[in-house]
């Protein structure tokens, strides 16, 4: 089982400081919701964690190892970022075959994850014919390919219909209950409230609150109330 640990993370783009001294932990068996307004630094934090961007200072590790140091990264962390990097002219199955080949995974895993996300009927269609929800499912299938111990998902609920939202919620809950670690960045507060164990709220590149959901949200204050109070001073695009 794997723990994500982020400590003292700083990242600037030109003169813009996207992330300032961000730190938190996501452990096995927990679903950690990463919340914050647009441009708060959520995606930048995930990109640094996954080795896609270089930190100016600080560390982001999986059990003490940077993503680039993982010998079999697909077996440690599966990720869905943005639209999943899908080529519109490639079929869903071929997209997964490419990633399975790059990660040295057996071809049968492609069929398994397609079945797991309910995409078998559309697997041999080109991605350009997919709805946004289908693209999200394909992206989640890609994240699951290596049977990872950690899932890092950026807005996975985008475009999912109500049945898809429930499916995603159940998937993440089951993944964490099996000892997996989930780091979930989302704007859909209702979904986060239903599935998250812990929350990390980021505003203007800084952590403004972190802790168990049960401690931050009470019976008379919803997650939306708490979130808006915490981010009131940092709301809006920087």
């Amino acid at each position, binding site marked *: 089982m794997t723990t994500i640990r982020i400590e003292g993370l700083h990242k600037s783009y030109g003169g813009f400081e996207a992330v300032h001294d961000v730190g938190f932990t996501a452990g096995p068996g927990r679903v950690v919701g990463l919340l914050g307004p647009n441009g708060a630094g959520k995606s930048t934090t995930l*990109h640094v964690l996954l080795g*896609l961007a270089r930190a100016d200072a600080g560390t982001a590790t999986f059990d003490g190892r940077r993503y680039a140091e993982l010998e079999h990264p697909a077996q440690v962390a599966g990720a869905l970022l943005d639209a999943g990097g*899908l080529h519109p002219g490639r079929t869903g199955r071929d997209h997964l*075959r490419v990633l399975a080949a790059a990660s040295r995974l057996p071809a049968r895993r492609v069929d398994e994850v397609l079945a797991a996300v309910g995409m078998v009927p559309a697997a041999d269609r080109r991605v350009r014919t997919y709805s946004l929800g289908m693209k999200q499912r394909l992206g989640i299938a890609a994240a699951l390919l290596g049977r990872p111990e950690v899932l890092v998902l950026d807005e996975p609920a985008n475009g999912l219909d109500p049945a898809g939202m429930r499916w995603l919620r159940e998937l993440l809950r089951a993944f964490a209950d099996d000892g997996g670690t989930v780091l979930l960045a989302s704007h859909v507060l209702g979904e986060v409230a239903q599935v998250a164990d812990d929350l990390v709220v980021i505003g203007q590149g800084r952590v403004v609150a972190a802790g168990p959901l049960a401690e931050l949200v009470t019976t008379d204050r919803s997650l939306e109330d708490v979130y808006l109070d915490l981010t009131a001073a940092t709301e809006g695009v920087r």
Partner: protein
Amino acid sequence: MSVAVFRAELLKLRTTRTPWVIGAVAVAGMLLAQVLTIVLPRTLRTLEALSGSGAGVHVGAQMSPADTSELLSGLAAATDLGSATAQRGLLDLMGNGPAGSGSSGVTALCVLLLGALAATTDFRTGGVVPTALAVPDRLRILAGKAGATATAALAIGVALALVTAVGLVVAVATTPGASLAIGPGEALGVWARGLVVMVLLSWLGLAVGTLVRGQVAAIVVVVALALVEPMVQAAALVLTGGATTATSWLPITLGSLASAGQGAAQLFGAATDAGAGTGVAAALAGLLAWAAVLLVAAGAVFRRRDLA
């Protein structure tokens, strides 16, 4: 290079239409070059006959019938499909033509685009992100792309070689008195040099695509390279009275010289083809240097660049 990354990158190329379209265009360009090369001598002979017969047909309004006849006769000799030079030209995968001057540049442009698109498609679609998640080592990704691009370039090259072989057979069979003037070893040598040049040009395109990232910008760069280089060379020759060979060291010119083997000695300023062997080796080395320098630069930039 990791075999896994190579397989993944090759699968990327195989599962989208663009590389197949590029291959089809290269083959079509070669077919056209072969047809024109085979038809040209017959056209010249017909014109020569008409000119000589005083039938009123003239090539060049300012020329006398005698001069026209002499010119056509000279051109016909230069494009004689029974000659070893013309037959080597027919087999040239870069489509330089029998006298080394008939290039449409289609092959060069196709493999440059193949490499450039192999890199920029990943940036355009965001496909570089899941790739980098599967393979965090950027240099392994670039090496895998180089291997896959080279394999695709070789596959296209083999198809072109088949077209040129058919073209040579048709040319010899339909030219009165002509026979094969080059041996199997020489034919294989021409093809091998062409294949190497195609791989190196595809790597050049890959490096440009990795450095530039934007797909349209990369296409503009490689097309401009293919179009502007001959203009630069012509301008340099005019300005120096043909004294400079510096522009012969530009990449596409090096590719043409190395592939055709004709005129390669000019790299060292020699007027004859006596040093052609050395010239071909120098042209290949020069093109390899271009590809290596640009790929190293691309690797250095790609390694440090934020991908998201």
